[in-house]
């Protein structure tokens, strides 16, 4: 029997409410408001209260896929990464780095965003990087 309350941030709107993720035996079991968090002071909206549900949803896709002849196939990470790198490199080689666009995410962490723009600018070599702040 293992039980943890992990403080984290609600992934929905821009308020950034403090939440406690309830983990029982390694499984995400619930969400509680972090009562002492300055942003929400122990309150949450309906989305925050249910945030664990989107994580444990049966709809989650939990492995990389590659499309072949119009159909997805489950593959290992190495293969997925390799195929993607090869395809991107070929396109960059043929059409130049500005033929690639990158959309980063307003739902991902700062760290991931930082890496994605770094990836675009340094690995691909393009400033074609944007996200859906406007949408």
């Amino acid at each position, binding site marked *: *029997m*293992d*039980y*943890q*309350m992990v*403080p984290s941030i609600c992934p929905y709107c821009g308020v950034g409410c403090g939440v*406690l993720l*309830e983990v*029982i*035996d390694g499984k995400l*079991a*619930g969400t*509680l*408001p*972090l*009562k*002492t*968090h300055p942003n*929400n002071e*122990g*309150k*949450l*909206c*309906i989305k*925050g*209260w249910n945030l664990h549900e989107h994580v444990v949803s049966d709809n989650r896709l939990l492995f990389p896929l590659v499309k072949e002849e119009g159909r997805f196939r489950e593959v290992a990470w190495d293969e997925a990464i390799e195929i993607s790198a090869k395809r991107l490199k070929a396109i960059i080689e043929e059409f130049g780095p500005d033929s690639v666009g990158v959309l980063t995410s307003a739902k991902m962490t700062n760290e991931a965003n930082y890496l994605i723009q770094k990836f675009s600018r340094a690995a691909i070599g393009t400033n074609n990087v944007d996200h859906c702040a406007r949408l």
Partner: protein
Amino acid sequence: MNMMHEIVKEWLEQEKIDLFIGYKVVDGHPLPCFFTRENIDDVDNLVESKARYPLEKIAAKVYSTHPEMKIGILARDCNQRALNVLYVWNQLDPEKIETVGINCCPSPAREHADCSYLEREPSGPLKTLIGIENNLKPEQAEVYSQEERFKRWSYEFEKCIKCYGCRNICPVCFCKECSLEHSDLIKKGELPVEIPIFHLVRAVHMAGRCIDCGLCEDACPANIPLRLLYREVNQITARLFDYRAGTDSGQSPFSILGENVTLEPMSL
């Protein structure tokens, strides 16, 4: 190491309990935490915590998957009342629970008032004018005329943003399916919630069940005086059935309506 730490350690060591639910401070925030025999030194970090969480609800969650487990729990008066209610409704086995009591309570359900949970800030002027003050006692709310009362409560209900937090945090709400979410009973997908049925349905469910811990009101983003509402329905239950939730332990209010019932009709 204080006495609380000693007791908990002793219980864990003597296998009187398998785990203890209390609080521990993480980055300046007190968080609910489990203390176990394997991490017995961690017990030194056990604190009472000013922030209150529904520990007994967590215990019930544990019980539902690990019914064999013996659970110790840090219990304020409110936790103790909640435990009693959960025993009544078969959500926890009193045989499996040991409590370390903390003597405190701001609820009229108990008299003494040295609780870390203090009275709320006094309400702002507008709330006094058109809403219901959170600190009002039921008798004080009764001075409003029926119409006035309805208007004031409607104002309070109007603010609801339908987070369901009052229910989610409630230590004595355990249903797998909640009437508040029956779309035929209460309209869905709209704000404000359907007034007043949303809050009255919840109030009906709190009758004979609410232990006046105040967690709902703490969690309410709209500052609705829910405690007062539930105190009102609880008073009716006490008057009609002589049943006080959380303090009358051992029997469900349904069992009171047992084989020999003489109900004197009384006006509400």
